């Protein structure tokens, strides 16, 4: 797999010479800023009200991490859900349209080189977006006193959620020549993943074990733990399995094109 980095590098370069990368970065910065301001205003508003009602018990328990940063991280995971499909839709679909798939698959590359290279390219770009997310809680350290550990573990959670989205996006992109279909397929898959806990809540899934499964499969459940500052192996394993699983499926999908 020596060519993994060649493929990833080309992908990143491709993003940055086209307007896509800049559009996504700009839109994302705007959205992140907006959500941060809204979360901050809501937070100070709440403190103001608690003071008015002289609820000193609650005031003593309030902290930046649980009330402000956690909200912000969850919102950002939802924003990523809208933007990541836009980044990943072309990863493999465009290769088919341009005919460059034929170049890659007739070069001395393994299919893993292609699949992992594409994933790495997308994942690095998403890491850049998550770095932007990290700037805002960073500002809070200037004016307040959030917990560093919790802030970082939450950010790690957002990063892992972003990478999972990319793995699912690469998978969707491997099926079709159409970037629009790749986008929609990714978007729907991600949305379903997000709302699974809500479905479990409704009791549609029936008995306990099924709704437990629904909750387990959702990215949000595991993000929640990391945002709380609990870095547990079982959540990390979840992300590793999701990413690895979708990449294995992608490899099978790319391979099947040749054997049809």
């Amino acid at each position, binding site marked *: 797999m020596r060519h993994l980095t060649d493929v990833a590098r*080309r992908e990143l370069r*491709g993003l940055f010479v086209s307007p896509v990368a800049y559009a996504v970065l700009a839109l994302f910065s705007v959205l992140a800023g907006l959500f941060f301001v809204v979360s901050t205003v809501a937070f100070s508003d709440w403190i103001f009200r608690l003071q008015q009602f002289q609820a000193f018990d609650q005031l003593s328990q309030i902290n930046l991490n649980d009330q402000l940063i956690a909200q912000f991280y969850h919102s950002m995971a939802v924003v990523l859900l809208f933007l990541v499909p836009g980044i990943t839709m072309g990863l493999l679909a465009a290769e088919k349209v341009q*005919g460059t798939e034929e*170049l890659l*698959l*007739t070069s*001395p590359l393994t299919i893993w080189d292609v699949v992992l290279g594409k994933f790495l390219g997308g994942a690095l770009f998403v890491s850049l977006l998550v770095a932007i997310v990290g700037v805002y809680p960073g500002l809070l350290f200037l004016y307040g006193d959030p917990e560093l550990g919790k802030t970082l573990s939450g950010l790690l959670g957002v990063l892992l959620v972003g990478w999972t989205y990319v793995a699912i996006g690469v998978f969707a992109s491997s099926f079709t020549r159409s970037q629009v279909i790749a986008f929609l397929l990714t978007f729907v898959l991600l949305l379903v993943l997000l709302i699974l806990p809500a479905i479990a809540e409704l009791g549609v899934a029936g008995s306990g074990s099924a709704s437990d499964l629904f909750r387990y499969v959702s990215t949000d459940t595991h993000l929640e733990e990391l945002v709380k500052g609990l870095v547990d192996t079982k959540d990390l394993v979840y992300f590793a399995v999701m990413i690895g699983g979708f990449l294995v499926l992608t490899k099978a999908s790319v391979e099947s094109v040749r054997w049809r």
Partner: protein
Amino acid sequence: MIEARGLSKRYGDVVAVDDVSFSVAKDEVVGFLGPNGAGKTTTMRMLTGFLPPTDGTASVAGHDIFDAPLAARRCVGYLPESPPLYPEMTVSSYLDFVARIKDVPRRRRREGVERALERCGLTSVRTRVIGTLSKGFRQRVGLAQAIVHEPPVLILDEPTVGLDPLQVREIRGLIAELVAPEQGEAQHAVILSTHILPEVEAICRRVILIHEGRKAVDAPLGELTARGATLEEIFARETTRDAALQQASP
């Protein structure tokens, strides 16, 4: 250099290529002829490792496409029917990328790119973005991509299709120069697929005619035309014979 043994490709019940065997020697230039849909592209895709054959096998520069696929692919330069270009890249960064994935060692990469640029007449547009180039120049980049790693085997699939007459002449001249340079020795065994007969007559010394997935003719060009028939007559005879037979038998 190229050795195809009983190559077949079936898609369900449809037979695209049926038991095709041939070999191409070092520095031989073979014209791959046939009407559209005869199985030329499928055969080439099997040789390049893009499609696995249903039956039979092939070897390229001594490497079996099943047993040593990476080594075999390293020895092939391939220009598909539509050149596989990334429109947002510049010409030289694209060629550098291709050199990387074709396993050109780092110290020879720059030199390989320079040589390919020069041989294909691309030095003046090296910093241009591929998407802004004319079709003729894009075809040159496609050719440069195929030779950047100096492969012993070149496979070109209809390299002049869709170009204007002037560009056709340019590209044809370029290919002629690549396969039989005025200075130095020929370095590539070449398969050139086309259905344009003058192209074959201008460049190739041997002709393989594929018709309905089977090999119909495999002979040196001189031998074919020595009997007084033009290539066009042979082409017409071979590709219509089946139809004629079918009509004759009620």
